């Protein structure tokens, strides 16, 4: 369906080459991280720098698996649990909210929209103490629930602001036709509007997931036990009072990215089509 206007022959090749060039430039820092992870510490400090590891050092990867109380696989599990939990909350709350804001003109709408903006304006540093007190009183301190609840507060306002545009771009007559035909607002919302806004929902889910995945401050502050902490906490094993161990640290970066990148690659078909092919037709 989408192939109808696919660039042909020569043009296709030029565009492909250009895109690969863009990719190389933008992902150069990642390449650098990857080769740094394979170098020895001595080689990292070598001047001029080397563009590939002259002595391949895999010690940095072995150190990722388990350091003290830190277990990489368990941390991955924790991170997934937290990120998925935060994503589910964010999507469940943000999708109806953005629909309400986009399609209805009720009193207090502007205030609500503004407050969704305001809620993401405080820097993390001042959120930590009050949130900590709340989570302690909710008896979720030092559990993954605390991180889920906190991470969802990043995803919700973000998703609402992005999604409201999708719902707004859906023609009103489509929805009105549904009412005339006996759908009520909820069924119309679920059966007609959500499927049309699917690319937006997909993007919001992805971003909510990644916000939670990359979070460090919440996971570190609200979860004290090393074995319950997300993967990002592992960074402290390789950086701190006793200096930054670049090979370990970059290996950590590589290891953190791989599973998420793999998921994206395997699900690419679904994610990309979800993101780009749900356009409003007619």
């Amino acid at each position, binding site marked *: 369906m989408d192939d109808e206007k696919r660039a042909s022959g020569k043009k296709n090749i030029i565009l492909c080459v250009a895109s690969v060039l863009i990719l190389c430039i933008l992902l150069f820092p990642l390449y650098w991280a990857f080769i740094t992870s394979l170098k020895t510490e001595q080689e990292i400090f*070598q001047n001029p720098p080397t563009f590939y590891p002259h002595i391949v050092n895999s010690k940095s990867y072995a150190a990722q698996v388990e350091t003290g109380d830190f277990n990489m696989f368990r941390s991955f599990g924790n991170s997934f649990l937290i990120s998925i939990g935060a994503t589910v909350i964010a999507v469940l709350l943000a999708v109806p909210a953005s629909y309400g804001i986009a399609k209805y003109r009720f009193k207090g709408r502007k205030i609500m929209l503004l407050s969704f903006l305001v809620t993401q304006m405080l820097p993390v540093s001042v959120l930590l103490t009050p949130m900590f007190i709340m989570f302690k009183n909710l008896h979720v301190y030092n559990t993954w629930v605390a991180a889920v609840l906190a991470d969802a507060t990043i995803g919700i306002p973000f998703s609402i602001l992005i999604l409201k545009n999708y719902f707004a771009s859906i023609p009103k007559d489509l929805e009105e036709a549904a009412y005339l035909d006996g759908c009520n607002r909820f069924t119309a919302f679920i059966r007609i509007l959500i499927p049309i806004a699917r690319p937006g929902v997909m993007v919001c889910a992805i971003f909510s997931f990644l916000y939670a995945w990359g979070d460090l401050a919440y996971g570190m502050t609200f979860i004290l036990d090393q074995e319950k902490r997300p993967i990002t906490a592992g960074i402290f094993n390789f950086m701190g009072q006793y200096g930054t161990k670049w090979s370990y640290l970059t290996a950590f970066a590589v290891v953190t990215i791989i599973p998420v990148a793999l998921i994206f690659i395997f699900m690419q078909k679904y994610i990309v089509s979800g993101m780009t092919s749900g356009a409003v037709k007619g």
Partner: protein
Amino acid sequence: MGCCTELYLCKLARQPFSIRKELFMGKIKKKFRYDNVGIFFVLPAFIYMLVFVGYPIIRNIILSFQDVGAGNLVRGAKNFVMFDNYVELMGDKVFTTSLFNTLRYTVLCLVFQFVIGFALALFFNRKFAFAKPIRGILLVPWMIPVTVTALMFKLLFATDIGVINFILRSLHLIGKNIEWLTTPGTAMFALICANVWIGIPFNMILISTGLTTIPKELYESSSIDGANKVQTFMKITLPLLKPTIESVLILGFIYTFKVYDLVYVMTSGGPVNSTHMLSTYSYKLSFEMFKYSKGSAVANVLLVILLIVGVFYIKATTDEEEA
């Protein structure tokens, strides 16, 4: 396609059951006029945010009017000192630097990441074999925890062992190594580079998705009318993308304005406080120097500036909708 099926199903479903329900709905309708029902969709999210973030905001405002330091954080009287903390900030050189830095940093980051992100979104919107996979891979910078990204850029920008200096030297663009992170001006530049790198995928993906809401027929009819690419872009793409652009920019503004991790890890506000931002300074005051109230006051200045920007955004966007 999908929608039509749904409509058809709804039509078929008109049965006595739904008639009864419509009568019932009619009664409710008086109380819940069409538009007012919308609030029930919004309320759950609103309450959630109010609970988890509203309380911290209020607490922070109160704290900024008090005199809380190490001595009275836990016990001892917390006195209200009204605007003392804010007055103190006015004479604080680090505060004025960080305020100016934050504004400069935000505007520059926003311009670069938006323009590059937009350009890439348009580029990858064309149909060629690699478009979709590569666009997907470009999201990867977003998957790295910001702390790690910051460290990576710190390594890239290192003076003697940094690869950026090496590349510039090899290309004979510079004679001797630039001390990126130890000179005030260039340290800011390095921070902006790192942030733009993270921001590009963000802008690209959101604008790409925005592009999908533009009906293809519009482009087709415009090409029939003989419009060239620039005209099509100005007349169709930009106006129809306006809501998306506005959202992306306001979100970008907020996230960049309260940047914390990146600066903290790359420069910690240095050299000589030249890259402190409002957020890093607030953190330093609160958690390193035990000046909790002053730290809160800095955070509130940040909040007020964002609030003003937010009000303008809401006004601009909702006026359009109502016009």
